[in-house]
């Protein structure tokens, strides 16, 4: 790029000298600029304090995710699922065994947030990661996002819709490739997410976290003995490895009753396959009015 203007050349016998004095510092500046420009592995090393802050922030996020999956599972309510809004505060401590305890406060959003609805629940949790072993220990309490009666009502409504679905279900995947979920199939997605929450809770570690990417098949959908008996394969997306992990999940759900889940995931990385069974938590979800 041509410079806009060029200073007139120094003239006279005494000319060059003052120009040299002017030039030297400018040359130094230019050389510095040129040297810094193609920054390879150059640049300053982060101070240890800064790195710690990022590490902390990462652990708080992981803990919030684990806590929320566990909360969703334990609440057993497909109409009251929550997603993470923001981590407000927290502290993570790592012991010599590389186990990690995290105390934190975070806000949540309604999973099925309607337009305009800006309700944020608040949760406090203690999460214990056992150095990359599954099943982080979670203690979590959240403020109520939806009135208990309303929640039961919504659950029962979902349940009624599910009972009305014609079996066998004619679905290939939910959502389809274009992200579309037929409104009549929405309850299936919500219930699948509820079941997946159990699996995702168990598998979340300090480093691994999951999202439900797609229901790849519905193997069985029964509502004979009142409860919904749902056998499906879900594709979980693990973020740090970017892997897609198929998990076969079998759940039994009745509104208001604890969720029963069995699962088996196809692990590509480790030789052992992850599987688990939970007969639902006997502990009713604890909710506080004011937090």
């Amino acid at each position, binding site marked *: *790029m041509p*410079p*806009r*203007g*060029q*200073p*007139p*050349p*120094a*003239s006279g016998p005494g*000319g*060059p000298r003052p*120009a*040299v004095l*002017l*030039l030297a510092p*400018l*040359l130094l*500046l*230019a050389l510095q*600029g*040129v040297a810094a*420009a*193609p*920054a*390879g*592995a*150059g*640049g*300053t*090393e*982060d101070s240890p304090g800064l*790195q710690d802050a*990022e590490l902390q922030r990462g652990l708080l996020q992981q803990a919030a995710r684990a806590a929320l999956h566990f909360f969703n599972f334990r609440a057993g309510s497909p109409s009251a699922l929550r*997603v993470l809004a923001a981590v407000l505060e927290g502290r993570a401590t790592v012991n010599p065994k590389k186990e990690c305890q995290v105390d934190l406060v975070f806000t949540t959003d309604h*999973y099925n947030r309607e337009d305009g609805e800006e309700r944020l629940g608040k949760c406090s949790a203690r999460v214990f990661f056992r150095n990359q072993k599954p099943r982080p220990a979670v203690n979590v309490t959240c403020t109520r996002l939806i009135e208990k009666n309303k929640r039961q009502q919504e659950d029962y409504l979902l349940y009624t819709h599910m009972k009305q679905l014609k079996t066998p279900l004619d679905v*290939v*995947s939910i*959502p*389809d*490739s*274009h*992200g*579309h*979920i037929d409104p009549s199939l929405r309850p299936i997605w919500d219930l699948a997410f509820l079941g997946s929450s159990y699996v995702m809770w168990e598998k979340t570690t300090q480093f691994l976290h999951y*999202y439900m*990417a*797609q229901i*790849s098949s519905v193997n069985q959908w029964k509502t004979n003995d009142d409860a919904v008996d749902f056998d499906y*394969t879900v*594709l979980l*997306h693990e*973020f*740090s*490895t*970017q*892997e*897609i992990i*198929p998990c076969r999940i079998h759940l039994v759900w009745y509104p208001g009753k604890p969720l029963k889940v069995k699962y088996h995931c196809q692990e*590509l990385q480790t030789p052992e396959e992850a599987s688990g069974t939970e007969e639902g938590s006997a502990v009713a979800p604890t909710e506080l009015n004011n937090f």
Partner: protein
Amino acid sequence: MKPLLGTLYLLGILVPEGLGYDGSLAQPRREVVEETVNPWKSLDTYSYTKYHPMEEIYQWMIQISEKYTGVVTQHFLGMTYEIRPMYYLKISQPSNNPKKIIWMDCGIHAREWIAPAFCQWFVKEILQNYKDNPRIGRFLRNLDFYVLPVLNIDGYIYTWTTDRLWRKSRSSHNNGTCFGTDLNRNFNVAWCSIGASKDCHDLTFCGTGPASEPETKAVSSFVESKKESIVCFLTMHSYGQLILTPYGYTKNKSSNHEELIQVGQKAANALKKKHGTNFRVGSSADILYTTSGASRDWARDIGIPFSYTFELRDNGTYGFVLPAAQIQATCEETMEAVLSVLDDVYEKYWDSDGAGKVTPTAVVLGLLVSFMSVL
């Protein structure tokens, strides 16, 4: 040239998908392709709020360059592994002054469908508005836009025909027992040193060597050849709602890190104003994870000053399978962010009247030249 390219294109769609055994351990996820390809749509009825298969994107590129001749030209970049042509669109208003280049690529990861959707949206927005919108119009006075709507064409097609969640390219490895390289781990920058895998089964497989893949070679040799002119390298991904600066291969920061963060944050603010969506800004190693061989890092290290990865919507609710109903909002907000970056880049190098700005190096060189002429 055109008839040859046409033949190559036909060859490309005749090459069968999934050559050999698919090495993935999961059940092959076959899906019925719901959309039927209608090759003779007119540009007037092209929907930018739907996802399009590759054949339609190829068609769209031709139609765009035909409708906007004089401003848009389609160029051949290279061939993919499965022998399909890679094209980019050059948007350039003819003029006498030398131009700087803005590079944008989408779809380096096959399953991130919202990214190619954005590239098409971006092109449409520039072309529909450069005449009447002074903000966009001024860019074209001194900038050329080079847009690669789909980088990983083989992978993208595979997500339409076979596996919606495929990520990598479709190169064959290990005697056909393994498919695909993570193209964003394949660039020649700290190659395979961290955050990538040497195992061809893994989704972050870095390839058999730096720039081993034809797609990587095509992009890097072209970008390298134009690096003196490229001021901005934008690579579009999903999901995560992030604006990432270099680096992924180290926690060290680039020399212009502060500036990149500032510009990035301004872009995130502009994005949020549109629909309230929150994007975080930071270096990849800080706020995402470590990676080596990423195109953004490679671009920065060959000297391109403004190099960003955009991770578009959402935050995990639908992830890669973002509902088409969200394409418009996502593209609108992302457009605001990109325009904000372009504003900053433009103002750094040119005044509002389009005249070149004096940079420190230019001053020194200017003085040097005048000093030399005195001797």
